[in-house]
């Protein structure tokens, strides 16, 4: 029953939905702005937004974090963004 103190039970759900849309807007900004970044996974887990992926350059990683901070200023954001490795491979794969 949505009465008494339990009526507030609707609020966490509303907050979660709100966060879902805000994450979607963050992803749209990453794609639409100068970054053109479509390869980041952004998920809401345990009251924290987690950003995971591979960035082309250190500048890109900083830009992703900056945009995330602008879009989600009131939320903790954790980022596991690794940089692409542009070194030559050390071995081939044999395909027969």
């Amino acid at each position: 029953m949505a009465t008494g103190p339990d009526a507030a039970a609707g609020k966490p759900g509303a907050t979660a939905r709100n966060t879902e849309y805000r994450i979607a807007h963050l992803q749209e900004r990453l794609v639409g702005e100068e970054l053109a970044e479509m390869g980041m996974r952004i998920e809401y887990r345990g009251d924290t937004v987690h950003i995971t992926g591979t960035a082309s350059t250190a500048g890109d990683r900083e830009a992703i974090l900056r945009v995330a901070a602008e879009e989600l200023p009131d939320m903790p954001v954790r980022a596991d963004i690794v940089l692409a490795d542009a070194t030559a491979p050390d071995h081939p794969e044999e395909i027969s």
Partner: protein
Amino acid sequence: MIRVAAVGDIHMGKDSRGLFRPAFETLHDCADLLLLAGDLTRHGKPDEAQVVADEVTGLPVPVVAVLGNHDHHDERPEEVTAILRSAGVTVLEGEGAVFKVGGALVGVAGTKGFGGGFAGRCGSEFGEPEMKSFVRRTRSCADGLRGALEQLAQAGCAFRIALTHFSPVPDTLAGEPLEIYPFLGSYLLAEAMDEAGADLAVHGHAHQGTEHGLTSGGIRVRNVAQPVIRRAFAIYHLHEHPDVKGVKVAGGVEVAEA
């Protein structure tokens, strides 16, 4: 045996100029050709294409490319293609190119490809014009790829490689959210490869996918998106299959002598 270097999704812009050149300059020691599997630029702008062109110009191996969706974003794919070609890159869309490696003819058939999804879980040419156009576009890419692979067989290529940006199979998408698979590839591409035949399929586009896959006809598929292979390029040594070696090499020699 031929040595194929391949990478996709390098997403170059002015700030990444020179990033890949040191690794590319090692290609003469380890590869016979370099394949670029699309998304070479960030937005498909001419100045970004020039960065890519400068990165690969003068390399000691042939460079073959298809464009990706990023290379179309600025709606100037013809300009991007022209800039890459001016640097000596062979840019393919629904066509093939043949290279002589040692005594063997190596054919590369390329198309950007498009989405739509995989067998049993895909879009259809039905309903709104936009939906029909979407699926028709993928079918057109697949038809171009099939025709190019068939022409490479007729030309007597000992090795045939299918180069796309979008994925032909779901195998190499593992790690991506299932919900976006229809935007990452189409079974129509794999069907074309299986019908026409190929020794290897190389694609990009799926940054969170995995490297290895197979078509249902048994063609090896490799996702070479740079975030997946985590190197400047991957190298594949393609060995001739003993059952087909005689037939294919004989065909190649006939064409070469003609």
